């Protein structure tokens, strides 16, 4: 069978000048035996949505009062349904998230074990500060592993960002067999549009063609069922049964014809300025391109790392001194700036989720969102102190404790959803008396498992583990004070 037409790898790698930016290793030499998702008819997507520069827990998590329903469900796990939180979940997870409450999980007290600070790859655990590590033996970031191993036909991650420059804005990393760290380039919207949709022909998109084939087959089967239904040797009850079958096939045929129309190109973002004035239009374009690429089945892995940073301005966005600059200051104006920067991200995140959730995924059931897994992450943790919910308790250590982790979608039914899950232990050991949490490594392993990967796909020499587990360079929690997890199974309470 001809391989369905997909975007060529080179398309993703071509910069505006047409030069190849980098050639990532495809890991085609990695063991392929672990493609557990192959053959699973549900089309799953993995999306990472990365926010930068840390966050304040009092904005992100429910207040202690709102979270009073948390109860210990097993060791080191507290849980409550998100639906039990009256009013908005939190300042940032406001009413726009209400439609997704039952399909997402908000995780609390997730701690990183990697080298912290602004290791821009850590959202997906590519390799950044790699001193002392034999890089050649390390697996790539999880988006690449998922893209290569989770699907019938390996996918290619689409990396989208707003602030694009010669320094790639991407958290997607792979390593060559020679041990070279290769950072997958991020594309700004105009580049991505050129790569994906410049020569877009809806009739030649494999997904649209397959749907149309399906629709035609159903249409023809309808004719045949009707003929069988009228056979004189059928009873009235049998005819009723076939009538129901026919009625559902009519519905399916109609839905398939609608589904084909769901694949359409986004607006061409060419000409949007790479400036503070253009940042909103660029972000919107990135969202719309991601949605179109997923709906048109051009990719199953998307990394969105908008990262406006210095494109944020006080006048336009209420963020003074750029996002990163504000994150190093604890004055009220800077704290407010951080909140505004996050509000900006949440606006586009909810727009993305809403669009991903629009319409039924007729082929797979549910919506595309239901069949996807969206990982919202941040390379820096909660900048609050102990409880993470007290606005006045600000600690600007750029640390890696109590991270921003939101999982949306069930990965096609593999994840249990709808809960606020607090993975803290009952000990208070670190020097800020913060609760000891559970490793972010385990979150990433959970994402890979939910996408259908087997541990052998990411493990090195058969040893359990994924990612940098050396602990933190920055005065962070020693390894033995974090629940590392078995790193071969789902985080507790997340497997459906």
């Amino acid at each position: 069978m001809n391989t369905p037409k997909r975007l060529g790898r080179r398309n993703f790698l071509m910069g505006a000048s047409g030069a190849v930016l980098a050639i990532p290793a495809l890991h085609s030499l990695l063991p392929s035996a672990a493609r557990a998702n192959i053959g699973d008819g549900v089309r799953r997507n993995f999306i990472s949505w990365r926010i930068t520069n840390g966050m304040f827990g009092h904005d992100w998590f429910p207040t202690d009062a709102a979270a009073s329903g948390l109860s210990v469900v097993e060791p080191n796990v507290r849980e409550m349904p998100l639906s039990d939180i009256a009013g908005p979940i939190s300042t940032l997870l406001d009413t726009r998230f209400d439609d997704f409450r039952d399909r997402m999980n908000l995780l609390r007290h997730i701690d990183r074990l990697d080298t912290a600070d602004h290791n821009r790859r850590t959202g997906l655990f590519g390799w950044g500060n790699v001193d002392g590590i034999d890089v050649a033996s390390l697996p790539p970031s999880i988006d690449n592993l998922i893209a290569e191993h989770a699907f019938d036909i390996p996918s290619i991650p689409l990396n989208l960002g707003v602030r694009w420059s010669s320094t790639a804005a991407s958290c997607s990393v792979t390593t060559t067999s020679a041990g070279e760290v290769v950072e997958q380039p991020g594309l700004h919207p105009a580049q991505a549009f050129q790569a994906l949709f410049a020569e877009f022909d809806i009739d030649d998109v494999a997904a649209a063609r397959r749907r149309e084939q399906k629709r035609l087959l159903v249409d023809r089967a309808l004719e045949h069922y009707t003929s069988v239904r009228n056979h004189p040797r059928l009873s009235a009850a049998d005819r009723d049964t076939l009538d129901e079958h026919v009625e559902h096939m009519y519905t399916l045929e109609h839905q398939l014809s609608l589904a084909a129309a769901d694949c359409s190109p986004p607006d061409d973002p060419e000409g949007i300025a790479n400036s503070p004035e253009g940042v909103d239009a660029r972000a919107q374009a990135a969202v719309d391109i991601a949605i179109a690429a997923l709906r048109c089945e051009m990719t199953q892995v998307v990394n969105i790392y908008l990262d406006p940073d210095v494109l944020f301005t006080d006048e336009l966005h209420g963020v003074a001194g750029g996002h990163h600059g504000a994150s190093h200051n604890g004055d009220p104006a800077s704290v407010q700036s951080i909140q505004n920067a996050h509000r900006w991200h949440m606006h586009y995140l909810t727009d993305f989720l809403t669009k991903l959730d629009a319409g039924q995924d007729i082929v797979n059931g549910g919506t595309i969102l239901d069949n996807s897994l969206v990982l919202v992450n941040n390379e820096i943790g909660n900048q609050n102190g102990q409880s993470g919910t007290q606005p006045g308790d600000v600690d600007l250590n750029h640390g890696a404790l109590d991270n921003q982790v939101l999982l949306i979608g069930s990965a096609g039914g593999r994840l249990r959803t709808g809960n606020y899950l607090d993975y803290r232990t009952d000990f208070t050991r670190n020097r800020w008396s913060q609760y000891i949490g559970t490793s972010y490594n385990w979150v990433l392993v959970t994402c890979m498992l939910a996408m259908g990967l087997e541990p052998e796909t990411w493990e090195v020499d058969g040893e359990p583990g994924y990612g940098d587990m050396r602990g933190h360079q920055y005065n962070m929690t020693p390894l033995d004070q974090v629940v590392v997890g078995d790193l071969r199974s789902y985080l507790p309470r997340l497997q459906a």
Partner: protein
Amino acid sequence: MARGVRTAPWWVAALLLPLGCYTGAESAVQDTDSADTAAEAGDGDSSGGATTDGDGTDGDGGVPAGCEADDVPSSALVRTNRDGIVNAIRDVFGDEVVDDLGPVLEAIPALHVGEFSTELAPPSYAEVSAQVNAAFTVASHLTRNDEALAALSQCLPSVPAGADATTEPCLTALIDDYGGRMLRRPLTDADRSRFADDYAIGAAHSNAEGVATLLTAMLIDPDFLYDRIVGEGNGDIVELTPHETAARLARVLWNSVPDEALVQAADEGLDDATLRAEAERMLEDPRARTALQGFFFDWMELEAVPFASQDAVPDVDARDALKEAMAASIMEFASATVLDGDGTYADLLVDRTAYVNDENLASIYGIAPSAGPSELPADRAGLLTRAGFIATQEIPGTNAGHLIKRGARLSTFICRPLPLPDADSFPQEDPAEPGENPTQGIRERFAEATAEATCAACHVQLDGLGAPLGHFGSLGEWIDDETVGAIALPIDTASEVLIDGQPVAIDDAVTLSEALAFSEEGPRCLAENMARNMLGRELTDDDACLVEEFARALTGEDGAPASVRDALLDFVVSERFRRVRTP
């Protein structure tokens, strides 16, 4: 365990039956007039609507009394259930595609409306869309590259794009071979023409996609998704064609489509001797074992096997394994008894052979785990004393199993299900739980709580059937005493049970099993359930003679019961199996 989802527990099914409690045998055949009459009279007539004389026949060539040769079931469509779809795909296209596409095939809903996974309601939208999706995915997988195409047919990779499937030899052979297997009959010219057009849909892009659309069309064809009888001849009663007989045989014995040997036999006419030989061959095949185990899974309500409590089995994986082992052990015993041991209905109820390789289950039985057969202790008998059948949820404050739930399961097992009482009739406190009363066992508590006549009418049967199992704790383990808190109470397992309409004194679980094993109503109930499973629907008056013939085959001649396997063979080669009444 990948079995169909039961849509209604026993008590819902019971509610659908005519309300009231019967003290005599009631047939599952929906001849409510005769069943009610027989039951109310308590006269012991358990003939299921067909009357018999002394020897159970009318002396006319072995035809059951009251039955004519033309008393055959109607020719209702039988939907192919999910297992049937999967089995057919496996049998026609090989294991690999099913193994690779397990999740997409499991996405086809497996809801059923009756006791058996073969009893399906008209399809829902979810089912139809999932079937189409699965068909398309399977077909795409089977055509994913040249190697896969060659596995379907060596010549396929060389078929040029845009070929005409009405004339291209490789494609016409493909259509005949796979179309005939999936539709369970030789194709007509109209079929061939239709499938050639289906090929053309995908062939507009490539030969491989053409084959994919062709196979998809076969997999969503009504003659694949439904077992449909057209028959030969005119009039109300028609004979099944040889291919229809083969299709029915494959569905009943394998829950699949005929294999090549059976197709060939059907091509050659499938005479009586060949039909019997084919049926015997098919019963030797592992597919027959799987299908038979599926029947016992449904009949014994093994999906309802409870999980052990965390106190009893702390490890969650071990709890899962125990639940699976309880069901698997029963299915293995039943299929081995029927297919390997040539066992009778009585053997199913009294044989103590067991297949127990799970450590916790072995511990419940007080034996060592073993990869092969073991023998259960003498205080147990056949199916009715297996942990998977008698385990109930743990009752707080006591080690006893649930008397009434066991009585209810046994009632269903012998085709005498009882309705639930009105909710208003329930006592304030559940008699199953000892609460603050340490002086009574569960049997006494229920006796006291249900003494009133409206309750007692049903509880006579429920308590009578449940009490002999009193020495088995909630997980089915042997208990010497019934503990209520710190108090140990003696267990009284003696009871009186109506069997074949007569009161029979029962001492314990073993004597209960023996009494039912050698009864008339026991094998009759098995016959009814097997017939219901085969027909994929509740029984009606039209089925009475078919059931009767099968029951007679199980009961055997001269009081010597026949093996279930032989009865099944006699049944599937009988005229009544091969004829239907048309609308």
